[in-house]
């Protein structure tokens, strides 16, 4: 009798062992998630963006790349503002006049927008020629957009100082990221229909 009971008890136990373990469930969920191309692309994009930020935050990159870019932006924006008659002086990344001063710091240099664009183009399925064309248009667009942002922010600081914080924090940050996404979608839209099913985007 004792032996029988043992045998009977074993059957349900062996049935339980078929149910997937937590690790197996995670693996199944990951496989399901990974089966969609959009998820795979976004994961790759996240990986590249994480890599970008890890490099971006290093003192070496900040000193050798980010700071000079901010200074270039300051000089070009200063030149545009002088053409418009604002009479500004540029010192490193600071645009200054007797009326108002702004400094081009992290977040205002447009590098993150460029990084989003670059990483998205890098992971998206397209030919090298299409990617280079997209990069060319995209970089030009984002650089012009950032110059426009700096100039308009300076003008806001001069003419509508009460609105400067709203323009700086709540409007231009959002506009910049939204327009970067628009630029990306426009590039994707420009790809031949044989490669991307645009109707579903």
């Amino acid at each position, binding site marked *: 009798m004792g032996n029988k009971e043992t045998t009977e008890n074993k059957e349900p136990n062996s049935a339980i062992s078929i149910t997937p373990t937590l690790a197996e469930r995670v693996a199944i969920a990951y496989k399901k998630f990974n089966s*969609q*191309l*959009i*998820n795979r*692309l*976004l994961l790759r*994009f*996240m990986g590249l*963006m994480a890599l970008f*930020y*890890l490099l*971006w*935050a290093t003192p070496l990159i900040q000193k050798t790349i980010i700071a000079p870019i901010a200074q270039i932006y300051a000089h070009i924006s200063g030149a545009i503002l002088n053409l418009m008659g604002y009479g500004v002086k540029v010192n490193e990344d600071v645009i200054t006049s007797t009326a108002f001063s702004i400094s081009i710091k*992290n*977040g205002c240099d447009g590098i*993150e927008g460029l990084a*989003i664009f670059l990483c998205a183009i890098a992971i998206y*399925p397209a030919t090298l020629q299409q990617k280079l064309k997209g990069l060319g*248009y995209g970089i030009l667009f984002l650089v012009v957009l950032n110059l426009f942002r700096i100039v308009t922010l300076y003008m806001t600081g001069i003419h509508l100082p009460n609105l400067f*914080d*709203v323009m700086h*924090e*709540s*409007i231009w*940050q*959002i506009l910049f*990221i*939204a327009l970067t*996404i*628009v630029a990306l*979608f*426009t*590039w994707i*839209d*420009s790809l031949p*229909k*044989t*490669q*991307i*099913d645009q109707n*579903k*985007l």
Partner: protein
Amino acid sequence: MKISKPIIKHFFLFLGIYFVLLICVNFGGGKEQFANFFRSSSSVFYQSFGDGGAVEIKPSKKDKLFDTVCILTSKHQKNKALAEARAKGLKKTKITPVKFPLNTWNMAGLSFLFFISLIFATPVDWKTKLKSLLIGFVLLYAFMMAKMGMSLLLKFSIYYERFGVGFENKYMLEAINYLNNIIGIPFVSLILAALIWLFLCFKKVSLKPKPTSVEEETVVETATVS
């Protein structure tokens, strides 16, 4: 490169929604409501921090740029100050807390508003919109709290000698500072909001390539043969 009509349409829809929400938030007391929500949430998680750390998160009325102030103290600091006071024969003593200001709107609120606008401007059904909003809010909230936690850990670690909370190790402090520099940027929150939106709302999009013209020709030939 021409911009297609649906992209323009949805971009302007997004802008419309965003500006309406921004006006409501700025003039309808939304910023204050969010700051209150941020302070109460952060207090729940971080009122007591690590091994004896204490955080008081209060509204800031002195500074126009910052709506919140965090005041850091610890048991270790209080005990040390009391011991020193007793040694001097004093009954009472004062401790010096560390204070740092926060702009909760720039730190977290903006990403919520951006996310809501993206979701409402996306042409998906209401069920997907509501589901996405719910999941997105949870994820953005978790990120907001992680950001706050990292910021507090950094501050406690910088003043380790005073508080006895956080990390004493120089390399750990540098690592926390490095990570805090990354996640502390407002743009990172916006990228995260955009990614959550893409993950949740574009799930049904198929990006599989359609057969190229060469492949189509091959199919025709095969059909002719058979």
